[in-house]
């Protein structure tokens, strides 16, 4: 029992403390691809540390919703980090692994952030809020159908169970539906985490912002919590992509050796995905906002094909 608790705490710490490192790696790789040296991989930690020193400047038009939101956003992300099998499937909280609940917890954070953006009464906030909710709503069907496609083969919507079954039966992964579901989930991950081509995380032009526009009014510790939450979201989505679709290396038993392998496997998968993300972001331009629904419907079709392939190939 204590071993499971320790493992759960360990994998949770890896997720929440390692998330800024992942963001740092993506940014460093992008910098290198752009031909410049870029900040170090530990820069996001320095940014967060510095933000904690700053005071908070709040607009008088806001209400307690604005002040509560950073705490809600970070705690939903911390809760999500407990739900995802980062290193192992034998944690102490097996009842918290349902993927539909995970997506709903993400939506809870997004809901509050959208409200906070409206609260300040600025045009940028309203714009960011409206766009973010539109993209979240349009990405939902793809997410659910992709989950359905995976759940059909794994016989469960529980994340730990999915990984366990895929590890024990590698043949489950050898079918076209798997690849289709993976591709559609990649597009959804880009939409939900606000990366190119859906949203540019490093833009300064407010009219091109989606996620950034919602946090323009935040400063100091609030901004630190929200930035940290965004990095955890990216970490968790990439972990899901790695561990659900390519589950080799995830520890299914609570042995120390398996855990070490889990850490190494996670590092490799995240490294590859981060590299891929950096190359993608360097080579594509941001899509016009009203072309994003077309991208999302394309990914929806891929997911639907994944589901159909299951029914026709069984």
């Amino acid at each position, binding site marked *: 029992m204590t071993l499971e608790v320790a493992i759960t705490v360990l994998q949770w710490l890896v997720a929440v403390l390692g998330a800024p490192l992942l963001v740092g790696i993506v940014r460093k790789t992008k*910098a*290198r691809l752009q031909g*410049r040296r870029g*900040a170090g991989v530990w*820069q996001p930690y320095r940014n967060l540390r*510095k933000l904690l020193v700053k*005071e908070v400047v709040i607009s008088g038009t806001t209400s307690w919703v604005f002040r509560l939101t950073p705490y809600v956003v970070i705690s939903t992300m911390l809760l999500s980090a407990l739900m995802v099998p980062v290193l192992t499937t034998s944690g102490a909280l097996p009842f918290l692994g349902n993927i539909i609940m995970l997506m709903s917890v993400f939506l809870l954070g997004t809901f509050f952030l959208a409200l906070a953006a409206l609260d300040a009464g600025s045009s940028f906030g309203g714009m960011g809020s409206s766009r973010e909710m539109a993209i979240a709503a349009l990405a939902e069907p793809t997410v659910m159908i992709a989950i359905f496609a995976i759940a059909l083969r794994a016989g469960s919507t529980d994340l730990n169970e999915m990984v366990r079954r895929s590890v024990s039966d590698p043949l489950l992964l050898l079918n076209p539906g798997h690849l289709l579901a993976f591709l559609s989930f990649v597009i959804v991950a880009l939409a939900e985490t606000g990366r190119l081509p859906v949203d540019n995380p490093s833009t300064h032009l407010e009219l091109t912002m989606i996620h950034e526009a919602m946090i*323009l009014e935040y400063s100091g510790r609030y*901004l630190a919590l929200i930035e940290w939450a965004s990095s955890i979201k990216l970490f968790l989505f990439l972990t899901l992509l790695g561990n659900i679709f390519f589950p080799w290396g995830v520890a299914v038993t609570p042995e120390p050796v398996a855990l070490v392998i889990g850490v190494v496997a996670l590092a490799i998968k995240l490294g590859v995905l981060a590299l891929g993300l950096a190359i993608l972001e360097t080579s594509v331009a941001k899509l016009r906002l009203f072309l994003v629904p077309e991208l999302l419907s394309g990914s929806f079709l891929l997911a639907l094909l994944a589901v159909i392939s299951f029914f026709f190939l069984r």
Partner: protein
Amino acid sequence: MKLLLRNIFKTHVVTESGRPSVDEHIEMIGGRIHEQVRKQFGRSLHIREVDPGSCNGCELEITGLNSPYYDLERFGLQFVASPRHADCLLVTGPVTRNMADPLRRTYDATPDPKLVVAVGDCSRDCGIFAGAYGVVGPVSAVIPVDVVVPGCPPTPRAILAGILQALESRKIRSVR
């Protein structure tokens, strides 16, 4: 797409090496920020650029700071869109009548502790625009200034050196 990817991978890192230092006289004013804060800012500084009336010569040089050659990100510096996210205001040019109020609002919207770096001769003493009918005065007439980087326009290296020196310097000489 293939061409783009090929170019991305073929281009090497072109950033100049080392930290810039210049012979020019960088003015430091006041000791308004705490030592501990200075240490934090030394590793991560978010900058918001404000132009209350410059001729954009300084802006062109500042744009160069983002280029792969000067690459200010390697020192932990970053430009941001909102003053709420900023630690440092980079102000260029003299302050014109219409932009005096927006400049003050930008300054007030920035959370403490903060720095103000005035870039160019115009921001120090209005430069060639001194005495013009549309000009209120130098930047220090409207908001408190910590560092002045002289030049018309100063080179990107000088601007970078100015900012970094403001963060590293332990002995602040008080002018005025």
